[in-house]
């Protein structure tokens, strides 16, 4: 492989923009005819490979082979349901933002894995909104405009208030955690009847 071809290959690889024959010749201190000849040779070498050397409007550049374009695009998107922990976390951030992880845990009443908030950030719904100026300077989280858009909210004020949640029955104790808290002994006999129906 000739020194000129090597130099051409390196220069075009490292160039941030397509280069004209004149510019290449000037940079490499070579005659334009030699550069033109070298470019043809280099283009022939790359023909059919994964990368091609092409001329567009008098300027040369490397590009990946057009038939491999699908390799450069994102693979496949994998829809996944948000876990319950993550959903609760998101809800708490939305209702209480800006809020630290410790505060989220205090509201959830359970430890919250770091990964849970990471998932929300990965989804683009939650961002770091700075640090709380208290000892330890914990990171505080808030929601993003993407969150509002994807959840169909004009603003955070559109989130239903506590009273509205109560009215829709969403504050009714429905889960096991509540039963556990209340203790099985405290179950109203009527409700057991109801449950057995």
């Amino acid at each position, binding site marked *: 492989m000739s020194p000129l071809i090597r130099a051409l290959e390196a220069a075009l690889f490292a160039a941030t923009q397509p280069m004209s024959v004149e510019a290449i010749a000037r940079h490499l201190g070579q005659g334009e005819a030699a550069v033109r000849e070298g470019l043809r040779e280099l283009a022939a070498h790359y023909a059919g490979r994964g990368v091609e050397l092409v001329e567009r409007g008098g300027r040369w*550049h490397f590009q*990946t082979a057009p038939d491999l374009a699908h390799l450069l695009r*994102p693979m496949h998107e*994998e*829809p*996944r349901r948000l876990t319950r922990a993550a959903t609760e976390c998101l809800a708490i951030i939305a209702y209480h933002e800006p809020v630290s992880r410790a505060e989220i845990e205090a509201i959830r009443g359970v430890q919250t894995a770091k990964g849970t908030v990471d998932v929300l950030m990965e989804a683009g719904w939650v961002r770091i909104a700075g640090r709380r100026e208290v000892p330890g300077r914990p990171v505080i989280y808030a929601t993003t405009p993407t969150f509002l858009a994807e*959840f169909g909210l004009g603003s955070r004020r559109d989130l239903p208030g506590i009273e509205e*949640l109560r009215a829709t029955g*969403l*504050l009714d104790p429905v889960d096991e955690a509540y039963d556990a808290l209340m203790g099985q002994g405290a179950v109203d006999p009527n409700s057991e009847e109801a449950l057995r129906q």
Partner: protein
Amino acid sequence: MNEIALPPGEGADLFTAPARDALMLEIEGWEGPLDLLLDLARRQKVDLRRISILELVDQYIAYVEAAEALKLELAADYLVMAAWLAYLKSALLLPKEEQEEPSPEELALRLQLRLQRLAAMREAAARLLARDRIGRDVFLRGAPEGLRIGKKAVWQADLYDLIAAYGQVKARNAPVVHIVRDRKVMTLDSALARMSAMLGVTLDWVELREFLPPATQAEWSDERLRRSALASSFVAALELARQGRVEIVQDHVFGPLRLRSLNA
């Protein structure tokens, strides 16, 4: 250990007057006393394991003294090091039996080990910088098309999930049932009725408290109920005054409120 010393004489002429001047010019160049010591040690032009510590101490102290003679301001740590080295030198020269722990030989060896380590890292840094560095010697593709790597998880949740989750959190952790203890109160209506009835039978000024049911009655003996009665009676008095049925006077702040019927 026997490599520490230098054959007598060698290196002794390295710290001559011109060298000292040159040294002074570099005063800003050193990063602390250890750096200066290393430089001086190197001027002995021998393997760092073979330097003469006594020689080094003399050179360092000479440097500090020269700096003082030139009225150059030396940072405190240079002077601390000078004092320590002077101590080390005198200890090294003392008869062995008068020495304390740690021995001056140990201190000298430790200093030498430190110098070796600093020198090793300085050389490593230079060799590191001499490598073919990206952006200086080798270059990456100038305009990569970019690659979106890997699977992209598209997280799904909707507003319902969100508020339902919040509801559950609240239901789980907020006090679920508010039990307000059944507490007796005097309602505004009953206070109004009672006050109206009592005002109908007198034209005199009557203090507000006199409208309250007597505490001697068992059912009104509860202090909290009496406060409720007082509050309701006060509001009832304001209401009657608004209706133009009573007038209210108070002689001084926090003084007793007195009422008198207007439409007798």
